[in-house]
């Protein structure tokens, strides 16, 4: 995917206007960091790009195509979204079950399921915990699992909301390596964060909310 675009978007939570007449394009195949103070609207931008929130006015475009009429499930097939709290996107009892259940519900053939499972287990080094219970995983493992779930659908772009929250130095470094691997596969990354040290290590471009 070459670009995600926000065009003249205004958005408010009830009566509080968070974003006003914002226009910006996030280019693909690189890692862009969106930084800003708490409450500056970083997460809102991510949710607008995914279609989780709908703008009051303006348009969200994926590859110059409006996402207005698209359903969330289809959007997420091309653009993956990682919540600030990874537990929000983990549903099943075990890691393996959690990775596979959407495919089972969508009647994906077993052979393809096994291939996809193997691919993400390798990519995110999840072999050791494949049969572990999700609620017993550490924050870093949950983070990796949540990230892995996005790749069960072959996204072309991923949006990560504060991915370093609750991670120690070692785990941050591992996440950094992982993001570099993802970038090397020509997958665009939008990193929403205020962790400047981490951003310096992985981002190719930095956009400040204050400058928009």
């Amino acid at each position, binding site marked *: 995917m070459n670009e995600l675009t926000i065009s003249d978007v205004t958005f408010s939570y009830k009566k509080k206007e968070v974003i006003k007449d914002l226009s910006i394009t996030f280019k693909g195949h690189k890692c862009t960091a969106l930084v800003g103070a708490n409450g500056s609207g970083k997460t809102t931008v991510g949710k607008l790009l995914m279609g*989780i929130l709908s703008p009051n006015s303006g348009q969200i475009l994926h590859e110059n195509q409006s996402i207005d009429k698209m*359903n969330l499930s289809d959007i*997420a*097939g091309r653009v993956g979204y990682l919540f600030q709290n990874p*537990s*929000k996107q983990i549903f099943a009892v075990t890691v393996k079950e959690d990775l596979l259940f959407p495919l089972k519900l969508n009647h994906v053939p077993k052979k393809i399921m096994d291939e996809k499972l193997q691919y993400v287990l390798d990519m995110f080094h999840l072999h050791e915990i494949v049969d572990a219970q999700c609620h017993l995983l550490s924050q870093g493992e949950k983070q990796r699992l949540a990230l892995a779930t996005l790749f069960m659908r072959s996204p072309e772009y991923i949006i990560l909301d504060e991915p370093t929250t609750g991670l120690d130095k070692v785990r941050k470094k591992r996440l950094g390596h992982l993001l570099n691997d993802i970038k090397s596969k020509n997958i665009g990354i939008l990193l929403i964060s205020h962790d400047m040290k981490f951003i310096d290590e992985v981002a190719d471009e930095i956009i400040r909310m204050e400058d928009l």
Partner: protein
Amino acid sequence: MKLDPRSKLFVVVLISSTALILTSVTKMLLLFIVGLFISKILDGHFVSVIRKLKRMLTVIITIIILQSVFNTEGQVLISFATIRLLTDVGLTKGLLYLFRVLIILVSGTILATSSETELIEALIKLKIPYDFAFMVALGIRFMPIFIEEFKDTMVAIELRGVNIKQMKIKEKLDLYGYILSPVIIGTLDKAKKLSLSIEMRGFRSKPKRTSHLTLKLKRNDYIMMMVSVSFILLLVQGG
């Protein structure tokens, strides 16, 4: 208009209990209009009730059809071959159900015009033990948070590539198993943290609890209660 939370509780109990015993659609409609009127004069957000009506239409139509098909009484209004699709009894029962739900929702908007602290104080004045009053208020306060969490879970599951609208009933049932587990785990986790937090803040540390709020029934409260009782008596007794 500002009313004492006790008179609001009184009015809410009165109209919602009456909604359970009324069997006439016209009377139920009158009761609903009065509920809406009270909500309006208390600055309640009754517009949300009208919005919810849209979402409930499918349920109401299903109830009307089921009542018509399985109830042998009543005059047939619409039929298909030998199947009774719509009878006057089915229509009446469906509409009664609709108004009962709407009246309960309107009652909620009336209560929501008082703050949590005012409601706790009102319940205490009505001789309800503080612990119970606090639990009721807590339940009311946390309801929107749970609704929000449930919505987030639905979004997260759609982001995983599950298109709920296109699923068959059996698949939907399987899916709800997955949806409920994070919601239940999240709820239990919140309850645990909340109980710890209120203990840390000295909950029940002293046998008697004081409050800066002083509730006093005023003229408007008595008028509201008397008018409500008179209206309900007229409604129930009027044939």
